[in-house]
């Protein structure tokens, strides 16, 4: 199947702004228009990869990388900052973990607690995860940290969707 043609968000907003009068006048048209618009966003949101770092920067020690994504909800278009803990396993595979604690959503840090230098630590209620992101039993989180889809192209690391585990 060929990919639907992508309409950039900016373009899309322009459409809707200029088209607003039309929308209102022709209430009957609205459902059809919506139907036409919906598929525009979805392919862009799913399977979107963002370039995050030069692969050479990735080491065996987890490091924080940040990037930005555009997010659109019913009312606003906004830029949100995303973060991942990224490292290279012994077998060279690159792992990118979400820093969002699966307990109640605080941001976890690598090796921030002296007692657990080889774990991710959540400052909120002492949740802990081993290096592979698996929650340590007996601490509040009940699931591992989600992992990002990864892909390397031309020496750059790209991250995609977050996958819960």
């Amino acid at each position, binding site marked *: 199947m060929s990919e639907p043609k992508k309409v950039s968000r900016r373009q899309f907003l322009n459409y809707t702004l200029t088209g607003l009068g039309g929308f209102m006048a022709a209430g009957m048209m609205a459902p059809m228009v919506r139907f036409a618009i919906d598929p525009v966003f979805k392919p862009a949101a799913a399977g979107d990869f963002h370039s995050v770092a030069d692969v050479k920067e990735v080491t065996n020690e987890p490091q924080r990388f940040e990037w930005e994504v555009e997010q659109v909800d019913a009312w606003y278009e906004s830029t949100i900052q995303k973060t991942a803990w990224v490292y290279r396993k012994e077998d060279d595979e690159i792992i990118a973990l979400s820093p969002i604690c699966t307990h109640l959503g605080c941001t976890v840090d690598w090796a921030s607690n002296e007692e657990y230098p080889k774990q991710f630590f959540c400052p*909120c209620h002492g949740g802990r995860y081993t290096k592979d992101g698996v929650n340590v039993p007996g601490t509040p989180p009940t699931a591992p940290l989600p992992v990002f889809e990864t892909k390397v192209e031309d020496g750059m690391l790209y991250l995609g969707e977050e996958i819960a585990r």
Partner: protein
Amino acid sequence: MMKWAKKDLEQFVKEKEYIDTLFIPLIPIHTSIDEKMTGSGFQAELTNLFSRIIEEQFRGRIVLAPDYYYIAGNAEAEVDRVNNWIDSFTEKPFSYVFLFSFDRNWRKSESDLRGELLWFPGLRHGDLQSTETQSFVKEQAKEIVEIIKESWQT
């Protein structure tokens, strides 16, 4: 931290035992002198930026109160009302309360406030998008994050 919004507060109500900290941004508004007026707009935006960063870091343990606005110049007169806000959470009082502001006047009343004042000298003017502002915000935010973590540990 959780925002003052339905979805977040629903979670708060459910997970209260874990959420023991309140964060209130105190934002002065200048209304009379033009230059100060625009400046206070900038401070307000800056404050919101900080609230957002703190929210991201600690959303599982902190509730972010709605912004507390007041007419600049008379922070002392606001002390009672701020304390009222804090005391009004009667069902389950917070163990930790942080009051965040760029308004230096709060320092005079620091000891009367029923919360810990996080005061920082803000930036007078600037551009939220500039790299200068961004690095300022990142540095200061790191410090606030540390202060909050430390208070939890003691």
